[in-house]
């Protein structure tokens, strides 16, 4: 049988996507469906004095109007947070209530106050416009740093000072001592800019209630339908889980923003029973800007201590993380366990201390966004290392080399709670330097200078913890769920295979990658494999897709189920060949017996499994259908080296990315084309964060960048052709040897771009610039310096 693993197979799902035949939530209509429009607060902070629903109910076509009071009266609970962070001194984080519809207070622009349900979307909009809400506007605060100041407006009464938790990791005394004793200490203050996710498909949800069986169905734009079912049923609506089906059909991108259980999902599900009709809600783009969980938003102070040779002796980091107005599903874990635990980077820094304060503000909730915590960590490390190199007069590649964890040091235990299983950082950096022609950079800099342009080069050597997550570790760190994955592999009697996976695909290409993996393991043609995902009634269980976990964890669950299929197949084959199962071998789709010429194809065995005319019932069960749960032993640690070159026009501050080289170590690759596609997108998002995307709130909490007129997304024109290569150290603890590739680009890129940009601006005396480094900011920095010089 032809091998598929390692092939650049075209994505099987693209046929339907490219011809407009995908089925997204908004494409689905239910008989008797109604339309929901949410009435949202225009104020960042206000008391709700009254809501007059009659004015909306009087609008033609309006079927029902519900408010937070109606939900409270039905005993509906708040949206839960899935991760409890325990702060300094054992103090647990404070978790204020998060009602799906605000009850007496609104806490961000976009906070939902009521839902209007009507025969048409237009009638629902009319109703929403007619609804009268009397607000008592209160002072608001949008910046996390300002929210901690005394006298700042309070977001929740139960969170005095707005601090959700004050958490630490690492040995503070040892770090302070090392800083004290250091030859040199580099300090760096930074803002990791807040981002708005902007998946191409806005969120949507359809709630349906069937009184015949007392069953609910929620169709929703989710990365993890089982997680939504669990959270919504158990915490919000108190529906028995077996009475609720959650379907996530084709989903047009998530980037993390579709992990979370959102208010609208609970509201349409609850309202479908209340109104006795299916209820559909589709976000428009403006609503998406206001209500999809945002990403990043850190303010950080960092210190890196080193000896006279530039060997790092300690790192100290203090971060203020904006949580927004409420704790979104995984918000609390992002700036802690997905951030501070990564602060060792690729280096042997012996002691590290991190302190993180998570703060409520009157802004949209903030949660995981592509990379989630790891881009923030990489930005801290890779910027401060670059600055340190400049201060020490060392080549940025040299300082990194000097501090890399060496290949023979794995498994390597970092001072911030992780154990890296494998890696070869030197190899990826060497390859990246070669591929980017780093050695001749100065020539290119001179060429640019001749044209009046400033050119710079920047490196970034990132590491991430993916394959989220070993449940035991996650549980010890406060996760309220396990983070394994489930799969079922089912043969049909005629030998075709359906794989039911808990990993959800919303752009990642699982229908191809998983089919390649399955086909090779079973020795069958890839066309005979179908990948099924996104439906709690069809899939045994699933924790979903995020944290670059699908192949490493979900794929491993599939492999585990396949292994069970093979064990069972051996038994059936042994029975058919009248041999002992222990003597049966399986290779490339064929069961055979050593030392004989007896063999059977897996298709023949599958057929017999379903036509068991002479099975000994006490020994052999009919059917060929196995399921498995896979819980990883460790995280996986993808890593790589990126080299970016930019050119700046000093007259206008325009900055173009001229060259971008990425050398990644993702372990074993199943489909290199899909992997490259993931990195392409990730780098584009990283360039977006570095140069373009910046979410801006006014001081009083109005979202200033609330549309594409003001929020700049990366476009094709902003992105150069990439130079790519891979180095490979297979993951040591999963059966595939894969590490995950979905987030790497977004993690490694921002530091590479800003390192390059600040390198370009150095000649003009500019040594730092905040993201997004827009033409205006670059021009201002250059000009401020010119004026200072005059």
């Amino acid at each position, binding site marked *: 049988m032809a091998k598929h693993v390692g092939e650049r197979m075209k994505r099987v799902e693209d046929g339907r996507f490219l011809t407009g035949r995908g089925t997204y939530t908004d494409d689905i209509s239910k008989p008797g469906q109604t339309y929901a429009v949410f009435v949202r607060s225009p104020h960042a902070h206000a008391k709700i004095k009254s809501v007059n629903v009659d004015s909306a109910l009087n609008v033609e076509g309006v079927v029902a109007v519900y408010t937070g009071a109606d939900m409270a009266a039905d005993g509906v609970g708040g949206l839960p947070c899935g991760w409890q962070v325990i702060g300094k001194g054992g103090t647990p984080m404070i978790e204020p209530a998060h009602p799906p519809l605000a009850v007496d207070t609104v806490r961000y622009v976009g906070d939902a106050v009521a839902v209007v349900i009507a025969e048409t979307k*237009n009638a629902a*909009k009319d109703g929403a*416009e007619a609804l009268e809400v009397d607000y008592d506007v209160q002072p608001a605060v949008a910046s996390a740093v300002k929210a901690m100041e005394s006298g700042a407006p309070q977001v929740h009464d139960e969170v005095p000072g707005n601090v959700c938790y004050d958490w630490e990791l690492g040995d503070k005394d040892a770090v302070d001592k090392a800083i004290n004793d250091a030859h040199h200490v580099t300090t760096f203050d930074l803002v990791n800019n807040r981002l708005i996710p902007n998946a191409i498909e806005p969120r949507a949800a359809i709630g349906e209630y069937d009184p015949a069986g007392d069953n609910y169905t929620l169709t929703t734009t989710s990365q993890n339908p089982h997680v939504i079912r669990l959270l919504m049923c158990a915490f919000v609506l108190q529906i028995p889980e077996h009475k609720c089906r959650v379907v996530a059909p084709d989903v047009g991108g998530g980037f993390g923003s579709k992990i979370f259980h959102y208010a609208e999902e609970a509201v349409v599900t609850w309202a479908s029973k209340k109104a006795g009709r299916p209820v559909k809600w589709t976000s428009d783009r*403006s609503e998406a800007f206001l209500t999809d969980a945002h990403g990043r938003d850190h303010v950080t102070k960092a210190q890196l201590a080193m000896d006279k040779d530039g060997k790092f002796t300690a790192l100290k980091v203090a971060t203020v993380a904006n949580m927004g107005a409420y704790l979104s599903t995984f918000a609390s874990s992002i700036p802690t366990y997905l951030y501070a635990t990564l602060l060792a980077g690729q280096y042997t820094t012996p002691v590290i201390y991190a302190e993180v304060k998570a703060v409520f503000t009157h802004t949209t909730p903030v949660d995981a966004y592509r990379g989630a915590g790891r881009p923030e960590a990489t930005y801290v490390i890779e910027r401060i290392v670059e600055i340190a190199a400049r201060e020490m007069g060392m080549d940025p590649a040299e300082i990194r080399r000097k501090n890399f964890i060496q290949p023979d040091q794995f498994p390597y235990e970092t001072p911030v709670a992780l154990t890296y299983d494998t890696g070869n950082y030197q190899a990826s950096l060497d390859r990246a330097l070669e591929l980017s022609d780093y050695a001749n950079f100065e020539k290119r800099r001179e060429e640019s200078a001749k044209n009046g342009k400033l050119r710079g080069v920047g490196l970034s050597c990132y590491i991430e913890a993916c394959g989220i997550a070993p449940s035991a570790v996650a549980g010890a760190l406060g996760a309220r769920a396990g983070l394994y994955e489930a799969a079922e592999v089912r043969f049909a009697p005629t030998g075709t295979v359906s794989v039911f996976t808990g990993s959800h695909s919303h752009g990642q290409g699982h229908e191809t990658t998983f089919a390649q993996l399955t086909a090779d393991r079973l020795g069958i043609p890839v066309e005979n494999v179908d990948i099924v995902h996104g439906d709690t009634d069809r899939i045994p269980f699933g924790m979903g897709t995020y944290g670059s976990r699908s192949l490493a964890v979900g794929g491993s669950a599939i492999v585990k189920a396949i292994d069970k299929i093979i064990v069972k197949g051996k038994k059936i084959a042994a029975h058919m060949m009248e041999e002992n199962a222990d003597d049966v071998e399986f290779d490339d789709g064929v069961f055979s017996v050593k030392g004989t010429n007896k063999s059977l194809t897996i298709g023949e065995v599958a057929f017999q499994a379903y036509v068991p005319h002479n099975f000994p019932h006490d020994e052999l069960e009919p059917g060929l259908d196995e399921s498995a749960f896979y819980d990883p032993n460790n995280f996986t640690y993808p890593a790589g080296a990126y080299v970016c070159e930019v050119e700046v026009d000093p*007259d*206008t*501050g*325009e900055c173009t990315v001229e060259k971008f080289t990425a050398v990644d170590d993702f372990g074993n690759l199943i489909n290199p084309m899909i992997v490259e596609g993931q990195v392409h997108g990730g780098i584009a998002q990283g360039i977006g964060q570095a*140069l*373009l995307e910046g979410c*801006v709130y006014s001081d009083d909490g109005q979202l*200033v*960048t609330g549309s*594409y*007129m*003001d*929020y*700049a*997304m990366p476009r094709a024109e902003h992105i150069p052709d990439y130079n790519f290569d891979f180095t490979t150290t297979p993951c040591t603890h999963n059966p595939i040897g894969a590490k995950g590739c979905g987030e790497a680009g977004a993690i490694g890129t921002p530091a590479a771009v800003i390192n390059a940009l600040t390198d370009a601006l150095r000649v003009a005396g500019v040594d730092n610039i905040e993201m997004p480094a*827009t*033409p*205006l900011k670059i*021009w*201002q920095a250059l*000009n401020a310096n010119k004026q200072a010089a005059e």
Partner: protein
Amino acid sequence: MYNFDYEKAASADDAVKAAGGSDDVMFLAGGMTLIPTLKLRLTQPEKVVDVGGIGDMKGISVSGDTVTIGAATTHADVAGSDDVKKAIPALAKLASLIGDQQVRNRGTIGGSIANADPAADYPAAVVGLGATVKTNKREIAGDDFFTAMFETALEPGELITSVSFPVPEKADYQKLANPASGYAMVGVMVAKTKDGVRVGVTGAGPSAFRASAIEDALGSDFSSDAAKGVTMSSDDLNNDLHATAEYRASCISTLAARAVKAIG
């Protein structure tokens, strides 16, 4: 969208009649600006009169020293026109820099200038090349057309039928695009004409204007250094998240210098 009546006009006369000089009637051309505005419920016309299908308002003609473009001609048609590329390449270039291909396939010159977005590109050409805007009832000089932010000399129900551009000796358009919207943060049209140098600026102020200081400088010395040497005042320039007034002022000179360099 709120409900409104819709009428598709077969001719400019029909369109004007259908509008009846009313403030509550809006013309629809490419719909690239009007339809999003309607969808966001930011405007509530009683009636929309579609002029996008009027054949007489489409097309490009060159006669003598004038290029005339029908008001309903799309940006893509202007950008791709061999006649325009030959007579006023700067105008074809400007049209090719508007939005993206989809927008250029729908958006029209009449809709663009009637809308008078301070960040739109065409106004730089209308002012910088000294165009004449022809309506159903009169001709309006390019210099007088844009009156304030989103305001023009048009009266309610007045329909632009075409825009005529005198052919300059040489011209070039330079644009510094807003990183988010792609509209002009600053756009500068520099034209060398037999009557002197004209410099039209869009994106920088509440509406398009002529940079007379740069015109004067280039009048005596048509060089990029001369343009660059002019320090534009930032008074009355737009100030927003993406560009401060000072930045815009500086970029006007820079872009004018680039245009002069491109002209050669």
